[in-house]
């Protein structure tokens, strides 16, 4: 079994027993669906229609991609240093890249499960709110999930891990990850409330690309397979670059000395 898979499976086993962190992650994942459900019962939905709810959903789904794996990233990077288990781990004949890819795989697994929980929650929120999603939005939303949100969950996992890896304590990492979450939330909200047309470049930028994709669907424009593919590929490429940068930081003497 390759080293990264051993590390990834250990992270999944270890963190699936962390009931408190799982509970917090589930709360974060269901926060968006709860808000969408409340809005669906208010008079705002009569004014904005189901498209308003889908727009709102897009922001929460973006945030979910970053928050679901956050606690695992915190523990597997900064927590590992804080409790003194990083040095023993680094003493094994496994490359830093394998260690980081394994940790990324573990965090990504929780990110994807959290994202799935969020999406199931949205489906139930629409169902229970008695809101019928517009028929022309079904395909764009599915494309957005597959080409936008799933790669974004992996990107979010990589970014969470990168931010936490350079911190010596959980407390320091928590502060840093708050900024990591804040950025996509602000970008997402800005693009929902000020939906100006973005140039084709926007599809090549993680987070903005995801919003550009769903934005085109909300405006009733057909989704270009090229644009959808570009969002997925560039988001994944950015995630891989971040993973490489994290592995590089793990190789420095200071990390072990830390």
């Amino acid at each position: 079994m390759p080293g990264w898979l051993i590390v990834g499976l250990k992270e999944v086993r270890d963190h699936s027993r962390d009931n408190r962190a799982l509970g917090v992650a589930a709360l974060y994942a269901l926060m968006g669906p709860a808000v969408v459900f409340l809005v669906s019962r208010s008079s705002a939905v009569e004014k904005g229609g189901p498209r308003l709810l889908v727009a709102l959903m897009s922001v929460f789904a973006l945030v979910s991609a970053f928050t679901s794996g956050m606690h695992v990233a915190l523990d597997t990077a900064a927590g590992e240093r804080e409790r003194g288990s990083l040095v023993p781990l680094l003493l094994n004949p496994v490359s830093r890249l394998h260690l980081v890819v394994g940790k990324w795989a573990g965090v990504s697994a929780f990110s994807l499960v959290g994202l799935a929980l969020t999406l199931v929650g949205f489906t139930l929120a629409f169902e229970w709110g008695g809101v019928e999603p517009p028929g022309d939005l079904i395909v764009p939303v599915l494309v957005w999930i597959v080409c936008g949100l799933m790669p974004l969950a992996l990107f979010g996992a990589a970014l969470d891990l990168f931010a936490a890896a350079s911190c010596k304590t959980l407390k320091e990492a928590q502060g840093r990850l708050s900024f990591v979450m804040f950025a996509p939330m602000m970008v997402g909200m800005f693009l929902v409330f000020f939906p100006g047309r973005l140039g084709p470049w926007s599809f090549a930028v993680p987070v903005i690309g995801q919003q550009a994709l769903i934005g085109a669907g909300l405006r009733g424009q057909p989704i270009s397979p090229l644009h959808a593919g570009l969002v997925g590929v560039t988001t994944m490429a950015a995630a891989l670059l971040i993973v490489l940068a994290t592995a590089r930081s793990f190789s420095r003497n200071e990390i072990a000395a830390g």
Partner: protein
Amino acid sequence: MLDVRNLEMRFGRVTALAGVSFSAADGSITGLLGENGAGKTTTLNIVSGLHRPNRGHVVVDGEAADSPWHRRRSIGALLDQKGLYGRLTVRENVAYFGALRGLTGAALTRHVDRALDIVGLLPLANRRTEGFSQGERMKVALARAIVHEPRNLLLDEPTNGLDVPSARSFKAALRQMRDRGVCIVFSSHLLGDIAALCDEVVMIARGRTVAQGDAADFCRRTGCTTLEDAFMALTNVDEGRTCQAG
């Protein structure tokens, strides 16, 4: 068998090692003795493959092991950080490291059982390590370091914080491994531990090796009657290297 030659290491402007050399034979416990900050931990960090020295060489079992990867593969180490995964059981903690060293299936189970048997933790094998005492944690960490049955084992102040019974059983485990031919390098600033356990002692002061030999040899060389006096005479370079002079 370990042969460490002229290690030098700097962290920024701080010189941590300025020439550490020693050799450690199979089937013996070699003690690294030095005051706090002398360079013992840095030496073990380099030999274990955690750090790359600025200069110097490490030879493991007669083969040059200049790449940290080579050293990590052929050495087991229990350094100053000994953190465990609290949500995993003792067995899972040890098996994780065994798997990372390439052990699988029945061989992994056999190695984990043997390591837990050596440290006396088989009865607790299926308990989560959260809430373990310092002694129990140390034993899990040792089992994790020896799960692949390394020919060379490095230990950095392993008895720190252990109560008397834990320290005693820990030392018994080390002697058992020594008797099976393992080369053990043991760092400590506690003369009692060094005197009780080690066959050979390497004294380190200010990042340099100042002497290697056994306690009787040090006393003879310095004219001191105790290892403590000999240690002071040999490491306190400014005040001379003999008891008579000091």
